[in-house]
């Protein structure tokens, strides 16, 4: 197999692609594992750690892309308990990067968590793993036990007076727990519904204490940043705003779906599909590509040469988000795809706020009706109007994102919708 795009990059996050067994403590340490942790504990102050992470340009990898160092610097310096919550709820359709990180590189994740704790003055971190990721949760717990037995984590890390306790918490099956304040509610044993903000978690988070919430992949970047420095990190990707490696999750109608770790901005969508994903199944044409699971507007086939970094994808009219690329081909009924995406949001809406709870239901019903051939003129205006009643009016991002499948497909594939309405049927073969 030849890779047409020649990206000169030595993997940092997942050095063993295709591996199923976890990297144990000894193997991790032999490859400079916990060197960053050691360095921070013995020769850096917490503020220096924050500064290096800031200088690296690392942005949150969970979807929002918020500068990580800046987020850590929001934590007040006043004494008192502070917490780190790791968002391992990975539930966005088409996303499986955190899963591989936790299952294969648990120590890398733990080291990143520990560095975050040190940087913000927290002694306790909770890794909130979605309940379905049983293997990932088990392996994290085993790795924690290994690290504590070796004195790397727990009380008195690496012989210093720094204490870091990492606790794995298993979710119970709700996408909304990936919303940071809903995650906190769930950790506190309550019904996971997002909180009103302000106050923001940096001020009042877990148990109303200052809390940093970071995605698994974000934290997995931190050990090498501390070990090798922010200057090194800035040689990967496109500084200043798109630095570092990203694990791209490729799925959909491609021959080789999977996780692909590449520098931000090093490939275009087309190159990822053709050179890494081995092209579309059956050589069919691409109809559209989702870039951030189901939460961002679909990009039409004419956008395939968009570079895969935050800024470029935004300029193309969508969002990189968690970089979960789902490829739809020419045989895909876009209306059906939109209905399925809306069904996801309807099912996962927590129900707290009116527009999301009622709106996702209504949108789904209309889309289903159109797909089944019972659409009527005016339905498309209704869909767009309802989306306007939801977007910007809701308590959390789920509601906003729930309008993406509808608005982006109606605007960019309008003829396909109109065909369904006028012909009174779906013109495509059922899947």
């Amino acid at each position: 197999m030849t890779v047409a795009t020649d990206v000169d990059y030595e993997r940092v996050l997942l050095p063993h692609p295709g591996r199923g067994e976890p990297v144990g403590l000894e193997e991790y340490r032999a490859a400079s594992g916990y060197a960053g942790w050691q360095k921070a504990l013995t020769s850096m102050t917490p503020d220096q750690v924050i500064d290096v992470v800031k200088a690296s340009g690392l942005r949150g990898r969970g979807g929002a892309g918020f500068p990580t160092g800046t987020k850590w610097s929001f934590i007040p310096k006043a004494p008192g308990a502070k917490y780190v919550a790791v968002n391992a709820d990975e539930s966005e359709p088409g996303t499986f990067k955190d899963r591989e990180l936790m299952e294969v590189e648990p120590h890398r994740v733990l080291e990143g968590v520990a560095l975050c704790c040190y940087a913000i003055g927290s002694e306790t971190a909770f890794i909130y793993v979605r309940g379905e990721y049983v293997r990932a949760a088990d392996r994290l717990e085993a790795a924690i036990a290994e690290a504590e037995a070796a004195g790397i984590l727990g009380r008195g890390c690496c012989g210093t007076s720094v204490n870091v306790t990492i606790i794995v918490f298993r979710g119970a099956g709700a996408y909304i727990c990936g919303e940071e304040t809903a995650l906190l509610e769930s950790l506190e044993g309550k019904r996971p519904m997002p909180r009103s903000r302000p106050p923001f978690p940096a001020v009042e988070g877990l148990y109303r204490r200052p809390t940093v919430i970071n995605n698994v992949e974000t934290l997995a970047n931190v050990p090498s940043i501390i070990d090798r420095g922010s200057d090194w990190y800035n040689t990967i990707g496109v500084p200043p705003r798109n630095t570092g490696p990203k694990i791209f999750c490729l799925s959909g109608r491609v021959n080789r779906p999977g996780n692909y770790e590449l520098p931000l901005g090093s490939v275009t969508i087309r190159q990822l599909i053709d050179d890494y994903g081995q092209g579309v199944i059956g050589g069919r044409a691409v109809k559209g590509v989702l870039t951030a699971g189901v939460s961002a507007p679909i990009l039409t086939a004419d956008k395939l040469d968009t570079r895969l970094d935050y800024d470029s994808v935004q300029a193309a009219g969508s969002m990189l988000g968690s970089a979960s690329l789902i490829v739809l081909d020419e045989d895909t009924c876009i209306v059906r795809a939109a209905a399925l995406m809306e069904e996801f949001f309807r099912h996962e809406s927590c129900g707290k706020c009116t527009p999301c709870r009622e709106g996702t239901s209504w949108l789904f019903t209309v889309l289903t009706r159109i797909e089944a051939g019972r659409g009527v003129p005016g339905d498309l205006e209704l869909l767009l109007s309802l989306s306007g009643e939801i977007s910007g009016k809701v308590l959390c991002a789920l509601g906003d994102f729930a309008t993406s499948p509808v608005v982006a497909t109606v605007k960019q594939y309008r003829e396909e919708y109109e065909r369904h309405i006028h012909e009174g049927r779906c013109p495509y073969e059922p899947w």
Partner: protein
Amino acid sequence: MSVTFTRAAARTSHGDVTQQPSETVKLTIDGTELEAPKGTLLVEAARLIGLEIPVFCYESRLKPVGACRMCLVQIEKLPRLQTACTTPVAADMIVHTTTPDVVQAQNGVLELLLANHPLDCPICDKGGECPLQDNTFKHGPGVSRFTEEKRHKEKAFPLGPEIVLDRERCIMCYRCVRFHQEIPGDEALAAVQRGADSEIATLDGEPYTSIFAGNTIELCPVGALTSKRYRFKARPWDLVRTASVCNGCAVGCNVEVHSRSEKVLRLTSRRNVEIDDGWLCDRGRFETLPTPPEERALRPMVRNADGQLQPATWAEALTRAADILGSSGGVLASAGLSNEAFWVLERISQRLPGALWPPAGETWPVEGRIANLQRCKSIVLVGLDAWEELPVLALWIRRAVLSGAKLTVLGDKNGLWRSTATWLKGDPLTHLDEIEPAEGPAALLAHPSLIGTARARLEALAARVGATAETGMLGAPLLGANGRGAQEIASSITRGDVDQVLTAKGILAVGDEPWTNLRAGSFARVVLVTSGPFADVPQADVVLPMAHPYERQASICNLEGRVQHQEGGASPPPLARADWGIAAELAARLSIGTAGADSLEQIRRRIADEHPTLAEILHEEEVLVRA
């Protein structure tokens, strides 16, 4: 125009309403400049200038959640619309509540709520007092675009003995769930399932039996939680509403009596921030209503030679009563009688020995105000299960505990167990010496049955924990609705010996009590004055029909010693009379002087003269600070 507000009206959602922050903030709402205390939520700030921002999930006594999105407003410099219920005022904030964006948002929220809301208005109890109806008229779209099948859920679900739940109508505002989490803390309701399948339920399908369940009827902004007893009985616009006071217990929660065609149909709260803060318990709300006419005496009755009770005229009945009581008589008075009745009965009991019935124990009159409780740092309950006996008072105790107070309970029964720091079971008097003194304002309340033997020890304990009238509360309240009034005005009766009265040959039994349990001497004849059931009181030779507390104009004292007026609510049966009126007639027949006082005003004047602390009896009820 600039308006300044610094008084209690501008309170934050659920803090101590009697102490206000002194710092204020200037802001502008819809072009009107105003100053509001720091921390005021925008919804409340708008009310200061007479602007009602529409809400559903917001309730001033609960923490705001920003769930329903009805109160979205535009705040300059912020890109998205913000919920007014969760946003506190900020200096120089400029708010707009009527822009096209805001109107579109309001239309949208209502359209989405109404999409699946059943068209039940014609059969829904809430119609006419329904915030969803009202907001739709004011802020909703004129037509519905929803042409799909509406979502169906369970209707008329018997959630509990008093509450019917219609799950289709529920708009998931969570007020009911939040109420139970925050106020009584008994978590009696929960939201289950997710998204559009969300529902209100009890955990594990247990019946909804919280003693505070009825409050959710008033909280629910739609007809989802409704009263089983009141179901289908009236429309709000048919009701006559009268200010009164609950006659259930010594807390004296303020209520509105709602009646239709002179029949009392329901009570609602009439928020008094110093006594009940708008809450009622189910006993007061549901069980203090008048006895149905078929079960009560509508006219005077006299037992004939065959042992049958026969209707009689007032003159006949009173003559017979005087005969019975004249030679060897005694008085048993319910603690639910009015101040005015007690004044007359005290006169009567100078000649006829009197006592409270059921026996209420000895008295240690309570000092201190209910509103002090929220500032107490330690609270001790000796043998007193406040949750059971004085439920709304228990809510104040819980509020204090949520602010950091330590609650110590002595005794076996403790409905406040969730909020209790130290619970010493067994005989309360054996634990008195274990109570540590504590810092800060304190309260100590004891059950009146303990006062006879242990008053001095309890007073010493109150001193040791620092319970004073100025900053806290201390005493042993008589638990009936007007035990305090009896204490103040009819001390012979409150100190009277029940057993002595029970040996009398003629017993005057006055009030609404379970007289069927009365065990008098076998030769005793009873003159029964009641608005309750009478047919099963074995020795009642005379029955005089009394007006029910919600049918009388009278006054009672709550445990604080606060005089409150009951202004009627429905007319009593035509031949029934108020308790004080019947007592005055009897006094006259027994030639017992009432110093010329035989009208309501005259009796009140005498009470005010003889008991200066009750001077309020002369004034019309002041409606205290409203939300």
